[in-house]
Structures are given as C-alpha cells and as structure tokens.
C-alpha cells in the first residue's frame, strides 16, 4: 500500500453539539433534582449541593470543617460505623466545601443505592459533631495548611486572590493561624442547622440510578426536615485599591512561582465566551502561545498555562508558571509580550481555525457521558443558567473572528489592569 506520510489524512469538522437530555423535577419539599440518566455501567453519582459554602458561613474554616465533620458520627452510628458500611457497599462519599455550596457526593453501585442513600440521609440530617472529631479535623486541616504554605505556587495564589478580593471576603482565601483556634463546636452545630436544609438545595444525579430513584429520594430527603431559609450571600468589595505588583519572598525556594492576571467577570457576561477562546489561544492548551514560547522554544519552565476562574459574583483570568529564579524576569517579560501581541496583532486564520477545532473537540470530550456532563452542568447552578448556555458557546466558537478577539484583548488586557505576583526568589 502506497501512502503519503507528508500529508494529513482528510478529516471532518465538528458541526453539531449534543447535550445529554437533562430531566429536572422537585422532591415533595421542593428540593430541585437534575437527572442525567445514561451510561453502560450500573453505577450512579449523586451530588448534593447545600447552601452551606464559606460565603454563607462568614467565618474561615467553618464551612469546610462542618462539611467534613458530617460523616464523623450520627445519632445512630459512630463515625467508624459510617465508614464501615460505606466501604462494605463499595461506595464512596466525597465532601467538598466551595464558596457558595457545600457538596456531599455519593458514588454507588445502583443496586446498593437504597442502603447507601439511607446512610447519606443519616449523616446529613443527624450528625452529632463530637468535640473530639472536630478537633481531629481542625488539626489535620492545620497541618495541610502549613504544608501548602511551603509551596511557592500556593503563596502566589493566595497573594493574588487576597489582592483581588481583600482579606475580608472568602474569595480572598485569607486564613490565619488564629482561625484554627477560634472555631468552636457551637459554630459548627449552628451552621449545620442553618445551612443543611431543603430550601436552596440541589441534587444532581448522573449515571444509571434506577427507575425508583425518585421514590427513594422522596423517602430519604423529601420531607420538610427544616423550615430555615438559606443564609445570605455577601459580595466581595469590587472597589478595592489593588496592588499592581506583589512579591512574596521565600528565600530557600528553588523556583519562583508567577501569577499574572486581570480581574474579569462572571460567566453570564456577554464577553465571557470570547474571553474563554482568547484565553485558550494565550495559554489554555498545550499548543498555546505561552506554552510554545516559554516552554517549547525557550525551555524556561515545565509548564505554563492561563485559565479563567469564575464564581457567583466575580471572575478573573490568571497566567501561572513556576520557573527558576534566573529565568524569572525573562519569563515575565515574555508573558507581557504575548499579551501585547494579542492587543496589537490579528490572530492568523490558521491558528484561529486550529484553536476553534481543538475547543470543539474539547467540548465533545467535556460532555462525553453522564459523569462528565454533570461536572460541567454543576457550574450553571450558581447563576441559574439554562443548558442552552453550552449551545450558545458552541455557536460563538463556530463563528468568532480574529477581529472580535483582538477587540476583546484591547478591552480587557489593558497594561494598567494587569497584576503581577511572584512568590519565591
């Protein structure tokens, strides 16, 4: 067989984006359930999103310690018994506090769901929060905090978010050693009562939960177990005076961690999709300009990337890299050069087509199957966005031009808005 290795085989453009159907319904008490039923394995994942994030908690560590302590013992079972049963069913419980929610995740074989959801009900409704368990969690958390504080990457990230959102708002990620001492069991008990409630709670189900899932959920979580309303949210102060340049010294560091970024907006902003595409060109994938210049041409770093982070009330774009101290200034200079080029020069047609095609493929990957779909869908809940949001992104991606991208770069990548943080040497 004669083949031409110099020429790429023909390929098809991705011209359709199909989202798995998402069914929504309410439990008897109003809890909203979002169901993505698909997949060839008899397993299901259930994410419970409670209005119990660190913004509602209003006190550092309170949301995460409360969330972690749920599974450490109930009025019916000790913490050891909870773990024992969950492990016996081959299930997994994940607990994660974020800014506006605390999430409890159950991953379970379908045929054990009646048993595993019964355990989940118990830990969510009847935790006892023993002092000893809370102390253990706080100590563990303190150690993790100290280990993290040894990493230049973490030091740079904290300085960056504190600069953007201040030390008062949870978005700033500001925690002191005193916070570990001042958290009490009473705080935890009270926060649990106020925040692990039916109102404002969502359940996202993916996989094959079986046909009677609605009935099981109503049995376990459908009663009005509390008539509290969600605690109020607070917005970060956007009028902060921000530093343009911050240096966090760590004398014994072998590398410096760089964070260069700009404040941005939330996902429902009309320019969000375009900025997402511009970010990809700059540093959002392996073939990005930053990666090509700073890693593949100059070998200054193992990795460099940029990404957009959005929360309910704010967002930012940040470029992140670890480099050896001697290369720091050159890397910073090159990052600014790449940003300037986006403002000053039109993106070439070939590059734009490549990024477009890569992102189209990425969309297919990000929504491949129920579990991937639910991970992305979760991001819509805070802003109450419809699923057509994803189709809109697909359409913008198909049609965006180099001119539009340049305008966005000029509008948002203003030299005077760029914040540079360095941690290390």
């Amino acid at each position, binding site marked *: *067989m004669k*083949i031409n*290795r*110099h020429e*790429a*085989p023909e*390929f*098809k453009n991705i011209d359709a984006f199909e989202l798995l159907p998402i069914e929504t319904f309410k439990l008897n008490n109003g809890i909203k359930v979002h169901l993505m039923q*698909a*997949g*060839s*394995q*008899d*397993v299901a994942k259930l994410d419970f999103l409670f209005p119990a994030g660190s913004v509602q908690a209003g006190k550092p560590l309170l949301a995460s310690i409360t969330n972690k302590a749920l*599974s450490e013992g109930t009025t019916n079972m000790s913490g*050891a018994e909870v*773990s*024992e049963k*969950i*492990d*016996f*069913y*081959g*299930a997994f419980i994940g607990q994660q506090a974020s800014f506006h929610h605390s999430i409890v995740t159950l991953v379970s074989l379908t045929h054990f769901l009646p048993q595993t959801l019964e355990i989940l009900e118990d830990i969510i409704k009847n935790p006892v929060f023993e002092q000893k368990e809370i102390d*253990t969690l706080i*100590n*563990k958390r303190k*150690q*993790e905090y*100290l*280990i993290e*504080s*040894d*990493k230049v990457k973490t030091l740079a990230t904290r300085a960056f978010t504190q600069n953007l959102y201040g030390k008062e708002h949870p978005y700033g990620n500001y925690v002191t050693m005193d916070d570990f001492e001042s958290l009490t069991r009473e705080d935890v008990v009270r926060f649990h009562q106020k925040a692990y409630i039916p109102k404002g709670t969502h359940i996202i189900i993916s996989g094959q939960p079986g046909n009677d899932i609605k009935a099981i959920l109503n049995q376990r979580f459908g009663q009005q177990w509390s008539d509290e309303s969600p605690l109020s949210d607070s917005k970060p102060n956007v009028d902060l005076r921000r530093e343009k340049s911050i240096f966090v010294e760590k004398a*014994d*560091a*072998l*590398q410096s961690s760089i964070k260069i970024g700009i404040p941005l907006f939330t996902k429902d902003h009309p320019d969000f999709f375009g900025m997402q595409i511009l970010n990809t060109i700059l540093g959002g*994938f*392996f*073939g990005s300009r930053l990666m090509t210049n700073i*890693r*593949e041409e*100059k*070998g200054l*770093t*193992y990795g460099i990337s940029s990404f957009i982070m959005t929360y309910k009330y704010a967002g930012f774009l940040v470029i992140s890299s*670890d480099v050896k101290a001697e290369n720091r200034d050159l890397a910073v200079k090159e990052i600014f050069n790449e940003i300037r080029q986006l403002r000053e020069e039109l993106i070439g047609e070939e590059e734009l*087509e*490549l*990024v477009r*095609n*890569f992102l*189209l*493929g*990425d969309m*297919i*990957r990000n929504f*491949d*199957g129920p579990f991937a779909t639910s991970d992305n869908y979760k991001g819509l809940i805070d802003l109450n966005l419809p699923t057509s949001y994803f189709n809109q992104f697909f359409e913008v991606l198909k049609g965006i031009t180099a001119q539009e991208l340049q305008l966005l770069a000029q509008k948002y990548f203003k030299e005077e808005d760029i914040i540079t943080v360095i941690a290390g040497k």
Partner: protein
Amino acid sequence: MINIEKRTLSNGLRVVVHVDKSTPLAAVNVLYNVGSKNEQADKTGFAHLFEHLMFGGSKNIPSYDAPLQMVGGDNNAWTSCDITNYYLTLPAANLETGFWLESDRMLELDFSEKSLEVQRKVVIEEFKQRYLNQPYGDIPLLISPLAYKVHPYQWPTIGKDIAHIENATLDDVKSFFYSHYAPNNAVLCVSGNVVPEKVFQLAEKWFGAIPFRELDSKEIRPEPEQNEERQLEVERKVPADMIHKVFHIGQRTDDDFYTVDLLSDVLSNGPSARMNQSLVKEQQLFSDVNAYISGDHHPGLFTVTGRLLPGTTIEKAEEAIQVELDKISSEMVSDYELQKVKNKIESSLVFSEISFLNKAMNLASFELLGQAENINDEVNKYQAVTAQGILDCAQKTFRPTNSSTLYYRSSK
C-alpha cells in the same frame, strides 16, 4: 465483560480493539515496553526525557500536536519504571489522523539538536518543580536506592541526578530510539466508537511497513534478597515528620499479586480500613496514613507511609505501625473484612470501565503482560483470595530484614 478483538501485524505490532458505542470519540493508545528500568546507571531519566522528545516532530511531520488539535484531538503521555505510554482522544470520524501521527513517530523521530536542548531544560525544571521544590517531593529519590541495590528500580523515573539529563547527547537519543521504539516492542490499543475491521485496516496501512527492529537485549539483573534491616534518616524544612517504610514483594504477574493487593486494602483502602481507624482516628498519632503496592513488572514494593501529628515521635509512630503489621501477620482477617475489601475492588473495577480511554490504557497493559483478555478475569482472581492467603502473605512480607525505613524529620 469488556469486548476485545486482536491482531498481530507481521512486524510484531500487537493491535487490540475495544468497541464502546456510548461515546462519539475514540482513543488511540500506544504503549512502548520501555521504562526507567531499561536505562544505564550513568544515564538515568532517559526514558522520561525521551517521552518529551517524542513530541518534537517526526520524520515526515514537523509538529505532532498541531495536526491533532486541528481535528479536535488531544493527547498526553506518561513514563513509569516499566513502560512509556502515549495516548490521544479524538472524534471517532477522525481516527485516521491518530494513526498517521503515531505511526510516523514510531517509524522515525526527527532527531534535532534544538528539540533536545529545549526538552533537557524543560525536564530539569520538571525535576525541580516536582521533586526538589515541593515539601516531601524528594522521598522517591531517597527510598528507591535504599530498597534496591542492584536492580534499576533504584532510581526513580525522573532520574537520580540532574547531571544525567544535562549530559544527554543526540547519539544517546538515537540509539535509545532504535533499541526500544519498535513495532515488536509496542502494543497499539484503539477503543471507542470504532469498527474493528476498519481499525485493523488502518493499522496495516500506517504501521504495517514499519520495520521489525533488533531490540536492546541487555539483561536486567534481579535484586538479590534483602537480608538486613535498612534505615535512613534525613532532616528537611517541612511542617511535619513523615515515616516511609517499604518491603519487597513480587511482580505484577505473580499469582499472589491479588492477595498482596487485598492485604494493602485491609490496611488502608477507604476510611474504615485498619490503619485509618486505629492510627488516625483512635490513637490520633497521624494526620494521614497509607499502604499501597507498586504493581511493577519486576518484583516491586509494599509501601506503608504516614505523616505525623505534632506531639507524636517518629519512634512512637513506627511502633504503632508495627503493632498493625504484627496483628495482620498473626491473626486471620475475618470473613466480613475480607468480603468488604473484595466488594470495594469489585466496585472500583466497575468504575474503571466507565472511561473508554481508561479501558484502552488498561487493555494495552494487560496485552503487554500476557493477553488483553485477562482483564476480564480480574474480578475472579480477587474473589479467589483467602484469609489464609493474606495471613501467609503478611508473614512473608512484613519481616524486619525485608524492610527499608525512611525517617523524614522536620527541622522546623
């Protein structure tokens, strides 16, 4: 049951296909049977450096990444002490692009001085970022040479010394390529929304003409049995002490692999496991404990490790670990406890079958070690493990003269 179809091309390339119609995508996974254990003692870190070079363009295609991204694909790779594994995913309709790219770099790399120079620097930064500039990051660099004195598992995949990477020459690169990268030393696995006959045709078209190559036949000397207790103590600027203990065990293809794996699960898989309950929850000595096995192709290691809470001395910590190891070496696990770890394994096997890419990687690995079909026997092999087997295994493994212990002390 995972469906499997296989062919072997005349040049020795093994081709494995798994059809999963639930995805619009396909995965192409190429596994090369070369890892850091195939390196020379004075040229370590080479297999991994080579993985980086595989993205620097091949004989007929100047860039590997761009043409793949152009058709909506994405890719990555990893290197272990045994294998180097390259994988990509793309829309199934564009499968042929994956064949074109992977076959050209198996045929011949574009050996360029420039690419070598840049990737040397990149890998050195990776070395620093992951191993030197990270709290506890140098543990692999300390523990491997303590446990292995002869076998090349004594150096980690990143290499034992930055100088080895700095000194790599283009001649080294070429000879490494021709003695390890060959159709007869690789497994190609394709999974996803594909038609097996079509995959075999593409394999023949793109890989069929790549010549069979003579492989490096250097024998790897086995590690002799350890006969003395080994210890190493270091001090680092970290917030908490750590203890890291390793014991020699068998290899992935040994019959008792499943027994040793469940032995480690009884100790630390899941929050209810013995060490988590006893050492973290009840006695509150550690913030974190872990027990796991390496699953290496040659005889590997059973690791028991833990990070201490303030107030626990390393000696006390080691003693508490020893109590758990003594207990499992003297009393049989109950039927209930054995059933629990088997249930956990069974569900994690089900979870691992969700991702078509994961299946491609696993199938390639099983094919290399024997035959891809063995993947469907895993559950039964775990189910067959007995309490007596676990007891025997624990007694054989947890002997002081089979152990190497690292005290990683905080100087703060």
